[in-house]
């Protein structure tokens, strides 16, 4: 099939960007979206021009690096997939496809479709861990039984890939789903409860400092999350934060 792509081009963080139109021909429905961009880039390179820069790595939906806003939605129209798992069979011959970077002030554009998500790393550095040394001299792994239901919920929260689709989709560019996933994972496990108070306060504080917006419970993040992280986690974060504030 043949398509028209409108892609955001921006040489670097300082310059202004614009949408540029590229036709692509002979796209196979079995291609992934990124393979279609690869094909476009091959053509651009052979013309001696600058190819479209985009983040990608594992191409199997787990590393969280790919981050395109396609036709008004993070990771495109399909559900529970990342951009690299989106296939061209979701589009029709003759379609015009709009491709933009994930936008938020906390995710400044580096080039074209690449954004800087190090704000997510800094939030994790503020408290997304259990303060235990990696010496191996801890107690036996089976010393503390954990209710299966809690362990499963902690796992579900922990499957967040940190792609930032939640921020990109939220009309407020809020990072609450991302932060709540980590807070939830640890607050559901006995190992994490020990420093739950400091963790939630520090992580929320860092999130605010990074310039993310406020959560207004629109629920867009949950729908667009490629891993289906639940809004329940945000409720849990709200609760944990309130309790921690009262405690301190």
């Amino acid at each position, binding site marked *: 099939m043949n398509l028209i792509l409108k892609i955001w081009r921006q040489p670097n963080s300082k310059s202004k960007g614009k949408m540029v139109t590229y036709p692509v021909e002979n796209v196979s429905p079995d291609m992934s979206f990124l393979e279609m961009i690869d094909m476009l880039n091959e053509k651009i390179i052979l013309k001696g021009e600058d190819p479209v820069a985009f983040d990608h790595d594992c191409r199997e939906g787990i590393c969280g690096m790919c981050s395109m806003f396609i036709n008004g939605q993070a990771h495109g129209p399909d559900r529970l997939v990342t951009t690299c798992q989106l296939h061209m069979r979701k589009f029709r011959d003759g379609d015009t496809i709009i491709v933009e970077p994930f936008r938020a002030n906390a995710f400044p554009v580096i080039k074209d479709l690449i954004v800087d998500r190090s704000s997510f790393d800094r939030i994790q550095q503020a408290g997304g*861990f259990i303060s235990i040394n990696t010496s191996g001299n801890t107690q036996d792994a089976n010393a503390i039984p954990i209710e299966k239901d809690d362990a499963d919920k902690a796992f579900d929260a*922990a499957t967040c890939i940190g792609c930032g689709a939640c921020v990109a989709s939220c009309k407020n560019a809020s990072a609450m789903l991302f932060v709540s996933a980590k807070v939830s994972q640890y607050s559901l496990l006995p190992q994490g409860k020990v420093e739950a108070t400091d963790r939630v306060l520090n992580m929320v504080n860092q999130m605010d400092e990074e310039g993310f917006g406020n959560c207004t419970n629109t629920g867009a993040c949950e729908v667009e999350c490629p891993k289906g992280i639940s809004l329940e986690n945000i409720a849990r974060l709200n609760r944990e934060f309130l309790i921690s504030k009262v405690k301190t």
Partner: protein
Amino acid sequence: MKKNNSKKIKKNGNGKNLMDSNIPKGPLSQKWTLHKSKINLVSPSNKRLIDIIVVGTGLAGASASATLAELGYNVKTFCFQDSPRRAHSIAAQGGINASKNYQGDGDSTHRLFYDTIKGGDYRSREANVYRLAEVSGNIIDQCVAQGVPFARDYGGLLDNRSFGGVLVSRTFYAKGQTGQQLLLGAYSAMNRQIGRGKITMYNRHEMMDVVIKDGKARGIISRNLINGEIQRHGAHAVVLATGGYGNVFFLSTNAMGSNVSAGWKIHKKGALFANPCFTQIHPTCIPVSGEHQSKLTLMSESLRNDGRIWVPKKIEDVKLIREGKLSPTDLNEKDRDYYLERRYPAFGNLVPRDVASRAAKERCDAGYGVNSTGEAVYLDFSAAINRYGKEEAHVKGLDENDADLVKKLGQEIVRSKYGNLFQMYEKIVDQNPYEMPMMIYPAVHYTMGGVWVDYNLMTSIKGCYAIGEANFSDHGANRLGASALMQGLADGYFVLPYTIGDYLTNDIRTGKIDISAPEFEKAENQVKSQINKLLKNKGQNSVDYYHKKLGKIMWDKCGMSRNEKDLKSAINEIKRLREDFHKNVFVPGNDKEYNEELAKAGRVSDFLELGELFAKDALERNESCGGHFREEFQTPEGEALRNDKNFTFVSAWEYNGEPSNAIMHKENLNYQEIEVKTRSYK
């Protein structure tokens, strides 16, 4: 040629003493304990004076960075991705082995050690593997304390599952995302140290070269991928945790950015590269769908527990299927060739990875491949669906002869076991695997070979270490499922942090490494001139053009089965391709901006050298073992034929100007505790 080499081996081997594996004395089970208690330690106040560079943030790199920082060293960690959490360890599905014996099924350190050695087809170093098995239990304790949400049973205790090639249940898992959970655990430990200022993290930075001063690794040259800045970083030791080189095949289950460059750069500066031809080809991957394909997707090996692998018996049926005139579901049982069950009645569909992969290739080469490219076989769940459905109907007291009901019930059971994998398959292939048999084909997955290291994980460059998949040490010629995660974390959390201290005791008075030293300047200039050369090349082919060509040569001639003729022609073809690359590659843009093509060009240029050494190593190894199958060395039934008398060694290659001039050193493998046997799955 071979004669020449062996002469040099002796001379070089003795002269430079490149190959001392430093295995401690004493009984196997005591080696690690005794070694730890004897090696030198750096005092806490002196650790503050020592800098360590870690390159890579997968399981090995992240765990090593975190632990070294906890111990008190100043750590600088580098990754080319935008965050350390993105390293490709994140994609590991199945699980992690540990000899905890929680299931009470007779597991022990010795049994895990033995299984790993045997799985590696007796080509790994005994002492290293024993140590790996020994610390495996600690890994699980550590990860649980860190908040890794492993699967649990209803009693709240950790659950285990069993994996290929072993007789016990020792695999810990977190659904199909074990690698992700373990990596995020190590990443969180790193984050804690970054927050404390003990780790300085360099995201989107690529290591361009190692700097050697007075025979010791003293730093690296890195490139900031965002603005192209070339930087010098000094340190008292350099640790490479840069993963495997499966992408030399272009199509593999590795991430797009996975590369050999860091390992190759140190190889060119004197580190030996061991067993480059030992590659694992995983049998259950989604087949290539066309020319546009950029990477391959793995499906967990657990599928072979319930799926039966087959191709049609008659070539006419193959033709009809390819033309879409016949549905595989309409083919009679008697017209199907369940070739694994036919060839290996004892193990059937559960033969090890290397055997299953080769058998699929054999059928497809004979013309029986079932998709348009001719490179796919069926993995059929209809028998399992039927069997489970009947059982379920029986349990529920329903009609076992109602075919529709049985199918529905059976599909439910299969969904509960493999639901996420089936969904993944459907997303990619756009076919419902509950109704139609899956199509699968082997794909490059893991590289057992890598930088040669001694027992302390130090390479042949002093002060330069290699851990995880980047080194060669623990998996021999074939890796067992769920062992890669175990090795990465063992090296990073529990082995390297001890052994590196022994070396660093001599550096407590060295002081900061001076990055204005001529060695740094020289290395920096070299890097810059390589970049300039690539950019100034006014060629007409893209980087991917060469990468794809290299991949095709590798896959066709150094892939699942190899022979002398093909390997020799591969060596020539790769050499010519490399020359063509340096003449005709085109890299757009400049070096002062984000330029992925430039980064790729550097990596592919290294793959083009490694590929040749890979083929050379495969040519020299005149035997079949593990993932390395030489057509000349097989039994009359077509099984791998090992040559223990002449090849029980690690081939460690020394760089000598060109891959073709590389010099082979042999590290003989001595097995004290175990008896070397033939593997048979008949």
